[in-house]
């Protein structure tokens, strides 16, 4: 049996392969250029290396408009006076300035969750770092693809 491709199928295949290649390419790059981001995280944690887990960052995989990207963050914590999340910092690794927002929680928060909308200049990693009342730190990262950048010309 012979496999025959018409023009449309051939193009679709090519585009798929190119998209795959691009995704892999940008991922590597985002991790390399992160000195500013590392510094911001270290300033926030006081030099502690954050561990994975506990934090859950929710952001769309593909954001059509980089001007308003909905993002929410939730941390698994009982939120009592002794054991609660002190603050959560959001970072966008590929923006001109990586900082997005820092949420400050209290033992009155009940559940540690917050959402907002942010600007993303380009396809990049979004990072959430949570600092607990006892000083331990946790991190979560999500890659968001952006079709139209949101930082103006």
């Amino acid at each position: 049996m012979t496999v025959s491709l018409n023009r449309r199928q051939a193009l679709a295949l090519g585009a798929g392969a190119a998209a795959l290649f691009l995704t892999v390419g940008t991922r590597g790059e985002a991790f390399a250029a992160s000195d500013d981001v590392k510094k911001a995280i270290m300033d926030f944690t006081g030099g502690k290396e954050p561990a994975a887990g506990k934090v859950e960052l929710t952001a769309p995989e593909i954001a059509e408009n980089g001007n308003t990207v909905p993002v929410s963050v939730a941390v698994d914590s009982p939120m009592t006076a002794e054991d609660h999340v002190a603050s959560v910092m959001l970072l966008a690794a590929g923006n001109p300035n990586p900082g997005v927002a820092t949420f400050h929680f209290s033992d009155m928060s009940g559940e540690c969750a917050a959402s907002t909308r942010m600007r993303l200049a380009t396809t990049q990693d979004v990072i959430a770092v949570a600092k607990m009342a006892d000083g331990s730190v946790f991190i979560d990262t999500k890659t968001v693809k952006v079709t139209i950048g949101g930082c103006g010309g």
Partner: protein
Amino acid sequence: MAQAKPRVKVPKKASKDEVIAIKTLISHKMESGQRKDKEGNVIPRQIINKFTCEFNGKMVFGCDLEPAVSANPYLEFNVRVPESGTFKFSWVDDDGSVYTKESKITVE
């Protein structure tokens, strides 16, 4: 600039120690300081840089905002309400003005 208009959504009633979700939105252009006008001059940054929520005078939630937050900043968060009282929300602008809004809740 146009007057920033704060809006909040707080349930009117709650049971004791219930965790409620609060949604806030304020109309503000959040000029990032990255954009340029037609002549190529940088448009100066003007954003809401701080948000706080107090319940009966006690700080329950706060947020530091950077230029990367979208125009008309929207925030959603949770609060556990132990008693009836008043929420006071404040937004601090780069130019120093503070926009506030209050909202009451009854615990039964």
